């Protein structure tokens, strides 16, 4: 204890000095007045929006939701004094374990009243991106957009108009999955979908079935785990709302293992940190599988009962052997080798005792159980071999495997750090396979997808179809990477206009130079709706000022188990209007106003109008009182019944057919998960001599993607972008902490401040995601990233990137 205390004292003493030295640092924000602070007596607030008639000034409190795309969706209480938002506070949920708020959710006052908020519609007065604007009326803005959209629809097709929301807000009315879809369905436009966070989930789906991101236990179940392996997630920053569940597990004696190339805050709290070479995660997982099988640590009963492990695979076709393959008039039943009968029998669930290993000839066909094939296949992934790929010691790999197979129940909490590589699907398949081999799935404390199960954004009981499809569904979905081609080359069809809302498109998607120089110039028209002048809004022909979340009513799903009411707490500021209101005006101008002429409340009622919710007594009125309702029964543990939504109904670590998001790419189809080296980040890539550093861009607690980039309170702690670099790489380039440096490759470059950190893996550099162009010294980090497209996954591989750094 003494030494620890001494360290703190030293630390404080040093900071003390620095603090005094910098005490008079100026902050460049316009002065404001405090005189009125004492004016009104304070009366305890009530959860009622009809208190305005009180003779005293009452602090009104409204239900609110903080709903950017950070896996969170925190319930807020929104405090309003004299018609103005004065604070946001943590709000109560029906399941209070999910009550939380974070640093960003406490800055909404600064966000709503930020001096840089867009205040009125504007049209471009110079070249695109030149920054010259002319204020226009809403009438002119709506007329212009409606005219442009009509012209493009008439000249090309309605599909030539693309609606490009990313994930700025979850609200069913005003968010990325809200009125924009309803509008696009009626108009017949293209909706840019996916390409983000979607490779590893595809791999998991391949093995377990089910919806995107729908395979995990609910976050609160983390507390039940005896082992948590955090894999490619810095959850103490990016999902910090879930940390307290992990901390509860640790209080109960659980162990925490973190697999990450860099020493994150999460890694610093771990019992074991596995510093893995970037992009080699699938090899590590396959080696764990190898150890678990070689050392007989797998759960044989579970494998036999709930996976395709016992199913015989025809070695000539690669397909599962069916009864009909060996018997005329046979059924489609899978064949297994029955040890009791001493022969192959159709598997009918009961009676047969299938073997998992061996090699058999049945009716002249050479066959092996899928489990044996997995065993054979992972032979090349021995810890000794994989140590060379992953730079992890063989003994550490063995320990990781033994821990996962024996310290049960075990949860793997993976994050999108592993998804950001070209073959990001394979690690998903390998992790799901690990769960299948050990039975760490479908149980309390055991899931291969810890952290965000039961997300109501994924699986919701509301009447979503009726809301977004008032007529026929005429919207065309197009993957956002394929959409690049549609804009650039007119393939598979031309896109000529973009309506961008809830998205900072230019900073979200890769290859920024291509977007700005090759794609946007091909668009005849760009409209952007936002509440600040983002890098994307700067490229618009028309900019529309939208309301913030607390200026409208909405119904908001989340990445936890609740759906929440967002109440209009303050009037819209300036001339701002909600996304819903903007689409209403556009719809009227385009001749389908009858589908958008109701108040928000009516649409919320429509969303709640289902048998399930009526039976539960959940109505708009009940939500005004309660603010939220829990959706799945507690606890939410998928696969408890042992049933999987796969072709066989089992965990399919061996696949007859491979899911693909495009028709190309059959050469990438592997029936068992494999390790494929990253397309650019691999150490033996020819680019490594020119660009020796692997680049990553992790999420930061100071932003959610690009949101909150300009919040003064957050900027006081995290004032400017840095490139984090290891001491050895910095020294080799003559770079010292605080130096201005350029990070560059053939695609682009960015200049910013170097932050020398012992926690960065030598050979890597890291720039936290979400900074905008004006915050860099020059250039932009998003220019560094390629728009590679794996045809199976069609997912952006942001970390599969090489760069070099030099002092400027």
């Amino acid at each position: 204890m003494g030494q620890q205390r001494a360290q703190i004292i030293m630390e404080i003493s040093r900071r003390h000095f620095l603090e005094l030295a910098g005490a008079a640092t100026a902050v460049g924000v316009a002065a404001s007045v405090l005189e009125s602070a004492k004016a009104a007596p304070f009366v305890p607030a009530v959860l009622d929006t009809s208190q305005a008639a009180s003779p005293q000034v009452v602090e009104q409190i409204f239900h609110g939701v903080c709903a950017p795309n950070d896996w969170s969706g925190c319930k807020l209480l929104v405090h309003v004094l004299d018609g103005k938002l004065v604070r946001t506070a943590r709000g109560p949920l029906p399941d209070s374990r999910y009550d939380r708020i974070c640093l960003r959710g406490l800055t909404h006052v600064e966000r709503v009243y930020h001096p840089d908020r867009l205040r009125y519609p504007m049209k471009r007065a110079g070249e695109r991106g030149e920054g010259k604007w002319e204020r226009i009326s809403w009438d002119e803005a709506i007329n212009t957009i409606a005219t442009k959209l009509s012209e493009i629809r008439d000249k090309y097709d309605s599909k030539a108009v693309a609606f490009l929301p990313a994930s700025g807000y979850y609200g069913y009315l005003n968010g990325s999955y809200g009125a924009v879809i309803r509008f696009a369905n009626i108009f017949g436009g293209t909706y840019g979908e996916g390409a983000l966070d979607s490779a590893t989930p595809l791999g998991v789906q391949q093995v377990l079935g089910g919806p995107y991101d729908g395979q995990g236990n609910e976050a609160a179940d983390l507390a039940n785990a005896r082992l948590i392996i955090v894999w490619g997630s810095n959850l103490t920053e990016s999902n910090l709302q879930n940390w307290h569940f992990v901390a509860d597990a640790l209080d109960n004696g659980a162990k925490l293992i973190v697999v990450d190339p860099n020493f994150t805050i999460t890694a610093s709290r771990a019992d074991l940190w596995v510093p893995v070479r970037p992009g080699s995660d699938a090899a590590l997982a396959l080696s764990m599988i190898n150890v678990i099988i070689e050392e007989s640590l797998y759960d044989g009963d579970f494998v036999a009962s709930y996976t395709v492990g016992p199913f015989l695979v025809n070695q000539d076709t690669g397909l599962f052997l069916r009864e009909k393959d060996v018997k005329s008039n046979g059924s489609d039943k899978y064949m297994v080798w029955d040890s009791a009968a001493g022969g192959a029998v159709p598997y009918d669930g009961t009676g047969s005792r299938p073997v998992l290993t061996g090699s058999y000839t049945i009716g002249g066909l050479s066959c092996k159980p899928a489990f044996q094939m997995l065993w054979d296949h992972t032979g090349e992934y021995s810890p000794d071999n994989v140590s060379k790929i992953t730079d992890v010691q063989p003994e550490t790999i063995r320990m990781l495997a033994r821990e996962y197979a024996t310290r049960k129940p075990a949860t793997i909490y993976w994050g999108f750090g592993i998804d950001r590589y070209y073959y990001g699907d394979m690690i998903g398949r390998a992790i799901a396979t690990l769960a299948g081999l050990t039975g760490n799935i479908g149980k309390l404390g055991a899931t291969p997808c810890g952290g965000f199960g039961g997300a109501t954004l994924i699986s919701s009981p509301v009447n979503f179809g009726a809301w977004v499809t008032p007529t026929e569904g005429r919207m065309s979905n197009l993957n956002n990477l394929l959409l690049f081609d549609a804009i650039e080359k007119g393939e598979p069809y031309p896109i000529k206009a973009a309506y961008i809302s809830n998205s900072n498109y230019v900073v979200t998607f890769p290859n920024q130079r291509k977007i700005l120089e090759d794609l946007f110039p091909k668009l005849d028209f760009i409209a952007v709706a936002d509440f600040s002048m983002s890098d994307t809004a700067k490229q618009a022909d028309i900019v529309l000022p939208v309301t913030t979340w607390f200026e409208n009513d909405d119904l908001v799903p989340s990445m936890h188990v609740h759906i929440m009411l967002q109440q209009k707490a303050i009037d819209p500021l300036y001339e701002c209007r909600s996304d819903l209101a903007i689409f209403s005006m556009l719809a009227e101008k385009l001749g389908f106003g009858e589908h958008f002429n109701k108040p928000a409340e009516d649409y919320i009622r429509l969303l709640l109008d289902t048998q399930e919710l009526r039976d539960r007594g959940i109505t708009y009125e009940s939500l005004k009182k309660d603010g939220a309702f829990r959706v799945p029964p507690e606890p939410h543990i998928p696969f408890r019944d042992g049933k999987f939504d796969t072709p066989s109904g089992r965990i399919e670590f061996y696949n007859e057919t491979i899911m693909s998001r495009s028709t190309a790419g059959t050469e990438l189809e592997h029936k068992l998960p494999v390790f494929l080296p990253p397309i650019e980040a691999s150490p033996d890539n020819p680019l490594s001599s020119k660009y020796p550093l692997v680049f990553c861009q992790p999420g930061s607690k100071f932003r959610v993607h690009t949101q909150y980039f300009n919040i003064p309170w957050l900027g006081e702690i995290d004032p400017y972008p840095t490139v984090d670099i290891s001491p050895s790489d910095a020294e080799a380039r003559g770079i010292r902490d605080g130096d201005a440096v350029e990070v560059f490759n053939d695609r682009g470059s960015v200049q910013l401040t170097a932050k020398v950190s012992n926690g960065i893996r030598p050979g890597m550099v890291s720039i936290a995601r979400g900074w905008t162009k004006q915050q860099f010294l020059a250039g932009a980090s998003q220019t560094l990233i390629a728009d590679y497209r794996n045809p199976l996954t069609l997912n952006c591989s942001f970390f599969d990137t090489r760069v070099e750094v030099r002092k400027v």
Partner: protein
Amino acid sequence: MKMAKRLAMVIDLARCIGCQTCAIACKLENNVSLGLSWNRVFTIGGPTIDTPKGQYPDLSMYHITLACQHCERPVCVQVCPTGATYQREDGLCLIDYDRCIGCRYCLASCPYSTRTFNYREPQQIPDFPIGNPDVQPRKAGVVEKCTFCVHRVDKGILNPACVEVCPARARFFGDLNDPESQVSRLIAERNGYQLLPEAGRIPKVYFLPPRRKGYS
């Protein structure tokens, strides 16, 4: 002086992840001016925020938060020439902003460097007061610092804002005079310790040590 209560805060460094939520919550609740902070988060590790000490891959890092320690023998009260800084019956060290003349003896004397000074009129983004309307406003020329959210304490609200919001559930507040209070029990069971005890000020902010990690 025998205190009626000894209100204290406990911060569990095994749970704290340095997320800064307490720091921002304090600014919002108390309408703390841009450029000032009553509650700060420090990285115990490398020289800059959220960096570890050691050499890759043998590294370590944890975080602490630092605000007024509400000492039982506060030096700030002793040095204040006007009586603006005072100690209440429940142990809270507070500032009467009307009596503060801005001499900053207290800043110089505080062993924990947790006091801040309004060199100019407080500034914030909206042009109206924000935060909890019960909080007393400050003006240029006065010292300010953590009050343990006295406006909440006086209303019988259990926790200061930073304790209420902590997403790690790492902060606790209560009365040390009650041996059964959560803070008393945590300090006893988890070897809670104070910062700089040798300064002799008997702080009422306690830290629970970081978790003993590893497999050995």
